C-alpha cells in the first residue's frame, strides 16, 4: 500500500496539478461551447420538422431564421476555438490539419 501512495504523491506534484487545472478548464470551455451549439441545433431541428407541416407560420419562420443566424455565429466561434465541426469543405482548418485531432465530440 505504501508504495502505491508514494507513487500517487509523485503524480500530484504541483506542476502537473497546474497542467491538470488547465486541461479541466479547457474541457469545461469545450463542453459549454458545445452545449450552447447543441441547444440552438435542437431548436432548429424542432422548428424544421414543425415548418415542414406548417409552411404558413410566419412567426415560426422568423424564429427559425433568427436561430440560423445565431447558429452560424456560434459555429464560427466554436470552430475558431476548437477546430472544424464538419468536413469536406463545410469547415475551415488551421495548420496543421486539425480534423484528426482529439477530442471528438462524443469523447468529451
Amino acid at each position, binding site marked *: 500500500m505504501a508504495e502505491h501512495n508514494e507513487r500517487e504523491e509523485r503524480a500530484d506534484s504541483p506542476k502537473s496539478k497546474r497542467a491538470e487545472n488547465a486541461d479541466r478548464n479547457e474541457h469545461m470551455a469545450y463542453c459549454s461551447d458545445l452545449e450552447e451549439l447543441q441547444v*440552438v441545433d435542437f*431548436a432548429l431541428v*424542432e422548428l424544421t420538422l414543425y415548418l415542414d407541416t*406548417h409552411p404558413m*407560420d410566419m*412567426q*415560426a419562420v422568423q424564429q427559425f431564421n433568427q436561430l440560423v443566424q445565431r447558429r452560424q455565429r456560434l459555429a464560427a466561434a466554436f470552430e475558431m476555438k476548437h477546430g472544424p465541426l464538419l468536413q469536406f469543405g463545410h469547415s475551415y482548418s488551421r495548420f496543421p490539419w486539425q480534423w484528426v485531432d482529439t477530442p471528438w465530440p462524443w469523447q468529451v
Partner: protein
Amino acid sequence: MYDSQWRDWKPYVSPNDPCPPIRVKWYIVPPNQFIPYQPMNLPQFPLEEALRRGTLWPALYSPFTSRRSVKGGKPNG
C-alpha cells in the same frame, strides 16, 4: 395517477397461468395522440430547457418517468 398521460388495464389472470400474474399493466398515451394538427404559436420552453426535455413545446412534453417511482409500488404491480 400522478400524471394524466398514464393509463392502466387489468389483464385476465387464469389459474393455469405458468408464471406469477401481472395484475395491472401501465402505459402512457402521449399528448400528440390528442393533437391531430399542431396549432400555431403554441407556448415554447426556453431553448436550454427544450434540449433537456426533448421538445420545444410544453403541450407535447411527455416524461416517461420510471413507473416504480410514479406509482410508488412495484412496476407492473
